[in-house]
């Protein structure tokens, strides 16, 4: 008993005042592990998780035959003489970028107005909207694709079958990722009061939305757009089954002919998305407190 009670007391300031740094004091009781244990667990898991990434990185430096390290695969990507090998890839990247722009437009022009309308004028619609926007997370993408095939057979007759048409399908997959940051942002504001204040000062509805509401939602909108871009760049299932050439499908094809450049680009893409997401978490933490959000 003495040993058990001695442990927590060791960290407590004997004068009875609150110690300036609370963390170390809590290390010996409650749920929090000691710093050393926590670090060891994180380092071990971190190393295990780094192995595939490091393998991929060294793989891109391996010569096709023999041993040693070489930058030849990196150079190949920028070599004009070998551009034809990668033309599908570049087309795929271009398609994915176009898709990203259109899907961001879908989010900003269709989803955001609906969310604002629900928030400002029809609070009862709010739950429906939330249900609709989170639904795609619970329905496996491949199941939706089963439905997309006939829809796209019809759509083909209307707008053709160019890669950009995928944006309609991907826009649906994106909904949960786009919805949550904006909704979290709306939750921190009292939009009704803000707009009523603007309206009573003589602003019209469009002016109130454009100059008051949207600037206040900037953080949520930026997060949502960045997440949207990362989902579009990583999307594979829909493009694969509907046989469209996007970044991911081109990457898979390329991997069969030139695994080195495939691995190189995969690594670059993972890094790129990581940077995007670090930005997302930074835009969230700047300024006001972010309400606790959960994966549904």
């Amino acid at each position, binding site marked *: 008993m003495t040993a*058990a009670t001695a442990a927590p007391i060791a960290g407590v300031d004997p004068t009875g005042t609150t110690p300036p740094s609370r963390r170390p004091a809590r290390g010996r009781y*409650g*749920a929090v592990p000691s710093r050393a244990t926590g670090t060891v667990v994180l380092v071990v898991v971190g190393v295990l998780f780094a192995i595939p990434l490091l393998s991929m990185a060294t793989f891109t430096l391996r010569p096709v035959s023999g041993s040693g390290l070489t930058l030849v695969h990196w150079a190949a990507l920028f070599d004009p003489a070998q551009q034809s090998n990668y033309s599908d890839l570049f087309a795929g990247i271009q398609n994915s970028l176009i898709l990203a722009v259109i899907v961001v437009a879908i989010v900003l022009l269709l989803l955001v107005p609906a969310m604002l309308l629900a928030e400002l004028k029809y609070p*009862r619609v709010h739950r429906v909207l939330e249900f609709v926007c989170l639904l795609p997370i619970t329905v496996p993408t491949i199941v939706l694709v089963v439905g997309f095939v006939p829809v796209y057979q019809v759509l083909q007759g209307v707008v053709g079958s160019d890669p950009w048409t995928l944006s309609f399908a991907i826009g649906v997959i994106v909904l949960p990722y786009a919805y949550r940051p904006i909704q979290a942002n709306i939750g921190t504001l009292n939009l009704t009061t803000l707009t009523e204040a603007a309206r009573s000062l003589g602003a019209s509805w469009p002016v109130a939305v454009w100059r008051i509401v949207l600037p206040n939602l900037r953080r949520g909108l930026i997060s949502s757009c960045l997440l949207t871009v990362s989902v579009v760049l990583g999307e594979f299932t829909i493009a694969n089954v509907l046989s469209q050439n996007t970044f991911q499908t081109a990457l898979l094809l390329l991997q069969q002919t030139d695994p080195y450049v495939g691995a190189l680009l995969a690594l670059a893409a993972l890094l790129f998305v990581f940077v995007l997401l670090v930005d997302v978490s930074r835009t969230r933490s700047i300024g006001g407190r972010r309400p*606790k959000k959960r994966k549904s």
Partner: protein
Amino acid sequence: MIDTTASTTSVAGATAPAAGAERADARGAGGRPLRRRGAGWLGFAPFGVYVLLFLAAPGVIAITSGFFDAEGRFTLANFAVLADETIAQNFWNSIWLSAVSAVISAVIGALVCWALSSARPDGLVRAAVDSASSVFAQFGGVMLAFAFIATFGAQTLAWNALQTVGFDSSTFLYSVAGLLLPYTYFGVPLMVLAFMPAFDGLKPQWGEAVATLGGTRLAFWRRVGLPVLAPAFFGSLILLFANAFSSYATAAALISQGGIITLAIRQQLTSETIVGVANSAGVLALGMVVIMAVLMSLYAVLDRRTRRWQR
């Protein structure tokens, strides 16, 4: 008979004030005239049409197409596809693969959450782990498959090491059991994302209270920590299972010949391989939706219990 009428009148009586309140609510804020209301609803039209065309329509088609034959007549004959040996095997493969990877990921992920709780919530470590977790859990797909090919493929370090003990890792990776590795690789980060809020909800005061009452850390975990975290843990476990069960990209990049249910759906979509069955992809999709619906209702129950401690 009298009972029925009595209950209908009481229902009517109950809804009448509600409808009245709604109308008052709609015009209350700005005192706008009622006719504006119709115009306002039109604002939902663009998004509504979009969702109807690209979420509702595909969703309904996906889960109902299994009930129709090639000529569009209603039939239950398509469900014979579920008796097909390969399909049944694929369903079973998906289920055990998801279950095993979910359990392994949940345990490792919970350990990581526990370790992370000693890091500052707004610190660099948390931010880096959070972002890396999102990358691996949600956006990895094909690219993670490449990472594992580079790790365990022929002539790599791990391959050489495993070859000396007589285990060919390069063919193992391209089997259903081999998918356990990448599935765990994106399962652990998802666990961190899903379970960390529950860990943050463990109040330091509870630990202090146990300590003041003379409890050991073991007592804290047995009496407070584990009971509070249990619903969140099992909820996250279900989430991991559902995520692994519905994932497609990694498997498609590694085993193109199929073996799990999502790949089987793709095969049925691109070529009807089972004789005498139309819309077999629709039947399989319905099967997946049924399993997902069961999982999500379980999740909803556990989630309600979890939230109790997060206020």
